[in-house]
C-alpha cells in the first residue's frame, strides 16, 4: 500500500505526525522544485536525513561543524578506498579526537536541520517506503519527533489552513491517553506552556485564547502544533449545549424491542443482497 502524495495537500508536519504515531520505520523521499530529500525513520524516530545538494556523510557534517579542518577533510575524501561513516566515527573516537557524544550531536543537528528546511516547502511529491533499508554505512540517531512537529507548526503561516484544521474555536481540548507522551521532554515556548496549563475538557479553545490574551491565529497555531504532536485531542466541551434544533433520529419513540426488530430485519436483508 502506498503512502504518497504532495506536501501541498499533506504537510511535512502532518507526515511527521503520522510517522510518529504509527511508529513507522522506512525512508521518506521528498522531491521538491529544487532539491530532493531523504529521511529515514526507525520506529517513529528520526534516524537520518539528507538533502540532495548538501552531503550529510560524517566527514562533511564534521567539517561544516568545524570539528575537522579543511586539510583533514580533504585527506579523508582523498582516500583511495572511501571509509564509511561508522568506520570513520570509530577511528575518530579511538584516536581520542572526538567523543561518541560529540559525533552523535553533530549528526543529530545536521539531520534535524534537513527536516527544518523542509518546513518551508509548500509543494513537493513525497513517498514513504516502509521496506527501504537504512542508508548503508551511515550512523543512525534517535530523535523524538514531537519537538520537530511543534516547531513545524510554529512556522505555519497559512491562516486558511489553520482555519480548516481547527474550524471551531468552541471545541475543547483534552490530553491524549498515549502512555509514552512526556511533556517534560518537549521544548515548549512560554506561550505554548500557558495554553497547556489551561487544557481541560471544560475550557473551550476560545476561552483559552481569552485567558492567554492570544488572537485567533496565535491560538490556532499553538493548538495545531499540540494536535499534530499527538499531545491533545479535540473534544466537545463538557457544558456545550445540544444543537439548537436537534435532528430527530429514526429510532426515536420506539421501544427497545421495536428498535432491535427493525435493525435485525435490515441486517437480514443486507446479508441476503
Amino acid at each position: 500500500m502506498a503512502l504518497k502524495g504532495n506536501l501541498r495537500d499533506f504537510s511535512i508536519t502532518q507526515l511527521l505526525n503520522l510517522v510518529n504515531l504509527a511508529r513507522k520505520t522506512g525512508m521518506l523521499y521528498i522531491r521538491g522544485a529544487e532539491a530532493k530529500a531523504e529521511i529515514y525513520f526507525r520506529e517513529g524516530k528520526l534516524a537520518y536525513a539528507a538533502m540532495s545538494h548538501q552531503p550529510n556523510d560524517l566527514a562533511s557534517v564534521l567539517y561544516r561543524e568545524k570539528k575537522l579542518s579543511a586539510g583533514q577533510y580533504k585527506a579523508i575524501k582523498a582516500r583511495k578506498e572511501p571509509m564509511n561513516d561508522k568506520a570513520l566515527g570509530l577511528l575518530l573516537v579511538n584516536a581520542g579526537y572526538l567523543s561518541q557524544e560529540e559525533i552523535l550531536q553533530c549528526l543529530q543537528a545536521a539531520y534535524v536541520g534537513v527536516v527544518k528546511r523542509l518546513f518551508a516547502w509548500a509543494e513537493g511529491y513525497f513517498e514513504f517506503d516502509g521496506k527501504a533499508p537504512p542508508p548503508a554505512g551511515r550512523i543512525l540517531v534517535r530523535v523524538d519527533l514531537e519537538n520537530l512537529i511543534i516547531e513545524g507548526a510554529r512556522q505555519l503561516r497559512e491562516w486558511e489552513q489553520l482555519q480548516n484544521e481547527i474550524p471551531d474555536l468552541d471545541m475543547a481540548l483534552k490530553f491524549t491517553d498515549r502512555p509514552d507522551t512526556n511533556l517534560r521532554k518537549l521544548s515548549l515556548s512560554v506561550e505554548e506552556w500557558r495554553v497547556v496549563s489551561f487544557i481541560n475538557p471544560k475550557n473551550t479553545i476560545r476561552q483559552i485564547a481569552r485567558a492567554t490574551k492570544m488572537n485567533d491565529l496565535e491560538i490556532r497555531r499553538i493548538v495545531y502544533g499540540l494536535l499534530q504532536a499527538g499531545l491533545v485531542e479535540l473534544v466537545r466541551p463538557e457544558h456545550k449545549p445540544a444543537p439548537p434544533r436537534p435532528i430527530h433520529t429514526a429510532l426515536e419513540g420506539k421501544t427497545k424491542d421495536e428498535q432491535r426488530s427493525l435493525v435485525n430485519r435490515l441486517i437480514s436483508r443486507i446479508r441476503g443482497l
Partner: protein
Amino acid sequence: MQTVKIVVTGPFNAGKTAFIQTVSEIDVVATERKITSEAERVKDTTTVAMDFGRITVDEDLVLYLFGTPGQRRFDFMWEILSEGMLGFIVLVDSTRPETFREARSILETFRAYAPTPYVVAANKQDLEDAWDLEDMRIALRLDSRVKLLPCVATDKESVKKVLLELLFSIMEEIEGGQA
C-alpha cells in the same frame, strides 16, 4: 409502510454515487450536473442535490440510501438529508490525501447534527495508490473506537460489509442505551 434512511456522505469524488448504485434495487435517482470548476474536473459530472437509492426490506419496511452532494457549496443540503437518519457512512477516497481534511470536517459536521452511529469507509482500496487503513486513521484523526473499513464502492460484497458494520454499530448502541 415504514421507511428508514442511511446517509452516505464524504468529499467530492469519494465514490458516494457508485456506493449507492452498487446495492440499490432501483436505478439511482441521481441529480448530477456537468462540472464547471476546473479544479474539480477529475470527473465529468457531480451530485448537486442528492443521490437516492432504495432497498426493500419486506412489505412493511424500506431502506433508503441518500448520498449527499460532495461539493462544500451544497452543504445546506446536508442538514436536510440528516433529518431522521438511522446512521451515516463517511466515504473517503483512499488515494487522495488532499481530501482527508475535508472528510474530517464533513464527519465533524454530521456528528454535530445528530448523535447517530457512523462508520468511515476507505474507498478505492483496490487501487495501487491507496493509503493503508492505519495511516488513514491517523491522518483522519479517528479514534481507535471508530470503525474504519476498507471498501471498494463498485463491489457489492464490500458495500454490503460497510452497511452491515454500520447496522451492527446501531445495534450495539441500542443494546448499550437506555430503554
